C-alpha cells in the first residue's frame, strides 16, 4: 500500500490575541491509501481541528503535512481550493447541502468547479445518486429529504470528482441509529472500492465499522490502534 497522508511534528495554535489555544500538539501520523479510520476523543480534544487541516481548509501553525505527495504548506488559497476539489470529499455532521438546490445540482457542484462538461456531469451525478440509493430523488430539494437521505446526497457529492480521500466529521451525529447503520454500510462499501475514509465520531458503534482508531486527548494523539476484524 502507498502512503497517502504524512503528518510530522504538526502543531496548531489558535491565537486570538489575548488567549492562545494549542489545539494540536506534535502530531505524527501516516495514513495509507485504502485505510478506514476513526478519530475519537473527548470534546475539545482537537479532532475537528485535525480534520480541517487534513481537508486543507486550515493551515498548520508548524510542522509537515503531505497529501498524496504534495506538500500543503505554502500553498495559495486557490491552490488549496483546487486540492480540496480534486483530492478530498467532505461529509459534514450538518449535511451542508446547498439550500433550494436539487440533489442532482448539489452533486454536480464540485464537478462544476472542476470544469467537467455538463452532460458528463449530469450522467455522473445521476450514477452517484443511484449508487447511494437516491435514484428516485434526483430533483428533490434538500428540505424534501430526510436526514439520512441528505447525508447520502452529501456522500454522493463528496465522491463526484473521485477523490482518493473522504473526510467525515461526525457524519452520523445528527442521525438516528438505523440511518447511522445505513451510512456506515455505505462507507464500508466505498472503502472496499478503494476510497480512504477518515471519520470523526463519539460512538463506539460507528468506530466499530473502521479498521483503525486514533484517540486524541487535549490536542495529543495518545493512541493509534488497529482493529482486528474477525470476519
Amino acid at each position, binding site marked *: 500500500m502507498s502512503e497517502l497522508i504524512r503528518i510530522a511534528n504538526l502543531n496548531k495554535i489558535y491565537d486570538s490575541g489575548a488567549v492562545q489555544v494549542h489545539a494540536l500538539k506534535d502530531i505524527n501520523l501516516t495514513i495509507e491509501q485504502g485505510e478506514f479510520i476513526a478519530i475519537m476523543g473527548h470534546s475539545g480534544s482537537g479532532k475537528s481541528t485535525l480534520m480541517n487541516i487534513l481537508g486543507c*481548509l486550515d493551515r498548520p501553525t508548524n510542522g509537515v503535512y503531505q497529501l498524496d505527495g504534495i506538500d500543503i504548506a505554502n500553498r495559495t488559497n486557490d491552490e488549496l*481550493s483546487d486540492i*480540496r476539489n480534486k483530492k478530498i470529499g467532505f461529509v459534514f455532521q450538518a449535511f*451542508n*447541502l*446547498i439550500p433550494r438546490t436539487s440533489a442532482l445540482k448539489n452533486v454536480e*457542484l*464540485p464537478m*462544476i*468547479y472542476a470544469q467537467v462538461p455538463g452532460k458528463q456531469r449530469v450522467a455522473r451525478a445521476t450514477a452517484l445518486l443511484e449508487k447511494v440509493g437516491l435514484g428516485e430523488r434526483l430533483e428533490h430539494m434538500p428540505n424534501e429529504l430526510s436526514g439520512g437521505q441528505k447525508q447520502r446526497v452529501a456522500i454522493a457529492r463528496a465522491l463526484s470528482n473521485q477523490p482518493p480521500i473522504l473526510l467525515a466529521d461526525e457524519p452520523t451525529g445528527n442521525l438516528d441509529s438505523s440511518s447511522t447503520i445505513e451510512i456506515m454500510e455505505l462507507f464500508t462499501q466505498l472503502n472496499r472500492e478503494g476510497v480512504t475514509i477518515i471519520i470523526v465520531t463519539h460512538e463506539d458503534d460507528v468506530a466499530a465499522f473502521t479498521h483503525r482508531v486514533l484517540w486524541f486527548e487535549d490536542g495529543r494523539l495518545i493512541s493509534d490502534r488497529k482493529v482486528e476484524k474477525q470476519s
Partner: protein
Amino acid sequence: MMLLFENIKLALSAIRSNKMRSFLTMLGIIIGIGSVIAIVSIGDTMRSVIASEYENVGINRVIYYVLPEDNVWYESDYFSQDDIDQIKDAFGDRIPYIDTYYYDSMTLSDGVRNQEKVDIYAVESGYDQVQPMDFLYGRMIDEGDVESKRNSIVIEQETAQKYFGTDNAVGRKLQLLSTTGDREEFTVVGVYKKQDSFLMAMSGGNALVYVPSSLYFTPDSLGFEINCYVAEDTDAELLRTQMTNYIARMKNRTTDEIFSTSARDEMGMMDSMMSGLSVAVGAIAAISLLVGGIGIMNIMLVSVTERTREIGIRKALGARTSHILTQFLIESAIISAAGGFIGTLLGIGIVALGGMLIGIDVVVNPLIVVIAVGFSAVVGIFFGIYPARRAAAADPIDALRYE
C-alpha cells in the same frame, strides 16, 4: 466560460427563489432607468416632430421685419410691392422666392350649401419650387395667375372631396367670402395632398388654400414682414447680414432694428434646449442609478451574510476566490440589468401610451435599450464589487461554522 454560464444560471435561480426581494431591489433601477428612457424618448420624439414641422415650412426660410427700438412703427417700416421689387433686383439670384407672407382667414363656399373657414395664403409664383408640394391634380399658382390677377385657387385633397366628392376638382368653381362680406368666384387650378403636420393639427387645422398674391397684395398695399427662401447653395449667414444692412438702409433704421428669424435659428434653439434637457436627464439618471446601486449593494450584503454558510460549502467543495466573486458579481449585474430592462420597457410604455393619446408617432432609439441595460449591468457590477469581495474573502471554516 462554462463557469460563467453556470454562474448565470445560479444567479437566475437565486433571483427566482427570492422574487419579491429581487423586485424591490430592482425598483430603484427600474424607476431611474424608466424615467431617463421616458425623458430621452420624449426629447427624441419632440425633436423629430419639430424637424418634420420645419420640413413642411421649409428649412431655408428667413423672415425679416422692422422692430423699432422704441416700439413705434411708421408707415415706412412696412414693405410695399416697390420694396419687394428692389430687394428682388438686389438679391434675386440668391433668393428664388419672396413674398409678404399674406395670410388671412376667409370662408370658402361652393355657393350652394357647403361652406367652411379656410386659411388663405396669397403666394407669388414659384412657391412650389422652394417648398415642394404633392399635387394630385393640376398645378400650383403660376406666373400667369399672378400677372393676370386670375381668380385661381389651389385646394387640399380633403377640401376637394368635401365640396366636389372627387380629388379631381380642377376647373371647378368656388367662392371666397371675406369678413367684409365680399364674395368672389375662383377656379380650382390644383389639388394637393396635405402633409401630416402635428403643429397644424394642434393649431385647429383649418384647410389651407393658395391664391395669387396679386389679388390681395396690390401695388399700394403694405406688408408687415417679408418672407424669403434662400437658395440651397448660398452662404445663408452672409446673405442675412447683407439683407439686414440693405433693409436697414432702405427703411432708415439701424441694423439692430431689423429683426430676422429663420427655421435654422429655431432648430438651433430647440437643439440647445434639448441639450440642456439632456444635462438634467443625466443628473436624474446619475442620482437614481446611485440610489438604485446603493440599494443593490445593500441587498447583496444581506444576501452574502445570509449565504455565508453556502459560501463556506462552496469553498470546501473547491470554489476558488474568483468563482465566488464572479458568482455574486453576476448576480448583482443580472438584478441590475433586469431592472434596467424592466425600466426601459416601462419608460417606452409610458411614452408610447402618451404618444398614442395625443396621436403622434413616438421615436424610440433601439440603441438606448442596449445602452440602458448595459449601463445598469455596469452599475450592478460596480455596486456588487464590495459585497462580492466580502463573500469571496470569507474564511471557509468560519463560513462553514456560521449559524
